[in-house]
């Protein structure tokens, strides 16, 4: 939240200022799409630790932050990259080795939790999950919940419908609002004040942003305010919700940014192989992230021909006929 009109800063400064160690961080995107990867890599570069991470259904951003050693706790609905990694590799390793604490929710539960945070209510009701282990088994201990005032005391709560059987619902589950310290989203366009235009599916990016105390928007294109305001119905987030705007082309790479570029199947397949092996993964981290000063340098290590191949076709918004095996 910042009502000002000039918020463009560097990625380094944005992460340094708004993502302290131990922050409750939320990242946008979904599986292989619009993960704020440039910000993720900068967080790893700056060696942030102990993050409490919220994500909906990622994906590359989650897995790299975990692999980079930044994450202590995770709340999520789905940790996968579709066919490239049905279960995120570093996520799986971290959970199985006890290095990462996880609280599981369903997709809609997680969506409603971000929505509750955005709306400023303590919870929202859902009709999914009754009788399942999402209700019966909790990942976080009551002690941990009580020791962090940024966490609700309960994973969720059951409620009998006070309106009888209205809407044919004898009972509902209440899922608590998520209130991150900071949310980072990557979008197609923003102006210098932070007004945001997402093209294609918005996922839960907007709810995640509104739920947070601080918001970093990274964008493919920095556009004039007047351009965005010719069609206010195509914009999703007003400038006053945003604290920092970072202009970073290919900011979602190797995930996709609709109408700009596709996901990079070669990178994602290669990453999976790297992630599966401790030594190769360490070398990847060193070479691609720690040894590069910024996202531009990271991108300079990619094959220019492949970057050409993943360029989005104007009609479809993705790279038609791309070899994705």
């Amino acid at each position, binding site marked *: 939240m910042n009502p000002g009109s000039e918020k463009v800063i560097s990625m380094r400064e944005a992460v340094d200022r708004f993502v302290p160690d131990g922050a409750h961080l939320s990242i946008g*995107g*979904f*599986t*292989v*799409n619009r993960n704020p990867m440039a910000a993720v890599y900068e967080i790893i570069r700056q060696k942030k630790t102990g993050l409490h991470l919220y994500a*909906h*259904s990622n*994906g590359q951003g989650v897995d790299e932050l975990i692999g980079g050693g930044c994450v202590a706790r995770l709340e*999520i*609905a*789905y*940790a*996968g*990259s*579709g*066919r*490239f990694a*049905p*279960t*995120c590799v570093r996520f*799986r390793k971290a*959970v*199985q080795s006890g290095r990462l604490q*996880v609280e*599981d929710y*369903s*997709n*809609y*539960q997680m*969506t409603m939790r971000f929505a509750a945070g955005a709306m400023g209510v303590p919870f929202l009701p*859902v*009709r*999914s*999950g*009754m*009788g*399942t282990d*999402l209700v019966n088994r909790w*990942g976080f201990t009551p002690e941990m919940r009580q020791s962090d005032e940024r966490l609700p005391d309960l994973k969720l709560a059951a409620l009998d419908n006070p309106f009888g059987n209205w*809407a044919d*619902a004898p*009972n509902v589950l209440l899922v608590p609002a998520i209130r991150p310290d900071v949310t980072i989203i990557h979008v197609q366009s923003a102006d210098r004040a932070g007004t945001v235009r997402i093209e294609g*599916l*918005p*996922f*839960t990016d907007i*709810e995640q942003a509104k739920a947070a105390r601080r918001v970093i928007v990274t964008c493919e294109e920095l556009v004039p305010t007047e351009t965005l305001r010719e069609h206010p119905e195509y914009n999703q987030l007003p400038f006053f919700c945003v604290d920092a705007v970072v202009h970073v082309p290919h900011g979602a790479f190797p995930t*996709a940014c*609709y109408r700009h570029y*596709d*996901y990079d*199947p070669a990178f994602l397949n290669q990453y999976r192989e790297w992630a599966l092996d401790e030594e190769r993964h360490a070398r990847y981290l060193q070479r691609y992230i720690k040894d590069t000063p910024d996202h531009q340098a990271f991108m300079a290590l990619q094959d220019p021909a492949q970057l050409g191949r993943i360029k*989005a076709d104007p009609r*479809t*918004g*993705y790279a*038609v*006929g791309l070899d*994705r*095996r």
Partner: protein
Amino acid sequence: MTYSAREMMAVVAAREIKDGDIVFCGTGISMLAAMAAKHISAPNSVIFFETGAIDAQLEEVPMAVGDPRVMLGAAVHGSLADAFAFMQNRTTGEHVVGILGAAQIDPYGNLNSTSLGDYNAPRVRFSGSGGACDVGSFVGRTILFMQQETRKFVPRLDYLTCPGFLDGGNGRERAGLPHGGPEVVITNMATFRFDADTRHMYLAGCYPGVTPDQVLERMGFAVPVDRARPVLPPDDRELGILRNKCDPQRLILGD
């Protein structure tokens, strides 16, 4: 024409989709079945992704439900909140058929896609629910894909991610879940359905060359087999559509 088990599964699932159905797809073979159904038997069915793309005009097979390929030519790009509300809403939710897969299934069609072993110190960790728990909770009918393996058909799940009929009978009603539940389980060998009263799984169909005993050998619990009927193999038209229109790169069908 010869065909693979995956092709058989996709076609069997496509046949379950009725014209006018709104088909909730996940990643993988479920997307292929929905695409095939639109070409084969249910031209007016609607392909629906949890990511909010409604009635996408798929030209290439998506690799994830967040793939930009799901956005092409859709009626609406909704948010995730919008997408799930269509299922939770009874007026639209009644028309939705969900296609799901999992790591484990139990005799009442409940699914585990979260973890194996102790949840708090798992032996194997999977992606987690995603939309599975929601779809299994909300919609009128679900179609479940499974590999026919003893470790996958288990008497008791390590973690109940997605509700089927819970503990059977009117278990869903007692828990407060909306109507609905699994309609059919489709494996690489057979199909299963659920008894109208007990909600226990039974063998409903065997693929060509498969016997009930072969199926039972690959399950961790027993099911009645007396209602089992042969399942017709995919015909040339079905296979042609699947191979040429739905997945020419064989991204999901495999080699």
